């Protein structure tokens, strides 16, 4: 298939957004997370927030879309995320990734990457790592 990735290789960045409440609602329905904090403005304001905001897992799922398109959805073996900042309606999110390790396995190679989903402010909303099994 593709050539074996090397440590330091980076992915072409991908931008999602501007984010909308409709996107949050779509994720609510698809995931079963029906917390009204993510689509009911009155509910969010009563809880002290300026507006609704995205589910952390919604942003994480966008980052997994980026990772799977980069090195292969079928080859993804591990995906880990840490939630760092809130994503609001109107946010523009940039996904980036870099290969941090390539290790020999019995059947090929295990490629480890670091991932980030960054808001337009420069703050990382999600920091992640992923591992892929590559036949090469």
């Amino acid at each position: 298939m593709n050539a074996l990735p090397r440590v330091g290789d980076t992915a072409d960045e991908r931008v999602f957004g501007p984010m909308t409440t409709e996107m949050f609602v779509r994720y609510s329905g698809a995931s079963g997370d029906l917390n009204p904090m993510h689509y009911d403005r009155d509910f969010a304001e009563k809880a002290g927030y300026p507006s609704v905001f995205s589910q952390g897992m919604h942003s994480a799922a966008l980052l997994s879309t980026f990772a799977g398109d980069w090195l292969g959805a079928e080859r993804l073996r591990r995906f880990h995320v840490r939630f760092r900042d809130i994503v609001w309606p109107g946010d523009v999110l940039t996904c980036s990734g870099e290969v941090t390790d390539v290790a020999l396995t019995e059947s090929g190679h295990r490629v480890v990457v670091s991932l980030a989903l960054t808001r337009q402010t420069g703050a990382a909303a999600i920091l992640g790592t992923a591992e892929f099994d590559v036949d090469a």
Partner: protein
Amino acid sequence: MDDVAERAKAYDFPIEQGAIRAFALSMQSDNPAYFGADAIVPPAFLINAWRWAPEGARAEHGIPRARLLHGEQEFEFIGDVPRAGDVLRVQEWVSDRFEKAGKRGGTMEFVVVTTEFRNAGEIVALMRSTFIGREAKATNA
């Protein structure tokens, strides 16, 4: 970690093509791997198991909702990635519980819940959710 007595009740999680498709669209993916009769699941799709959980099947982290944060989430596939048509047996348990000093003189509580997914008896995926209980306001500062 393998103390069966502390595990919540196991339940079945049918993997449906339409559910994968809806989830893939919600994560703005057009990756062919997630569409069609033999679609595989995106990692975060495993959280959908919870909507099939009957009473008593969720491991209780015990953190009050007002202080609850979702800190980290991890998904691991072991062997073949689950795909449409599979029926996975799901079981979860509290796998770790610890505290750290908070920045305001209180204590932050960490609870890790591990969820195991088996297909025909074999473990095919694991999910680890780290929940954080923010420090309560210091009462004797």
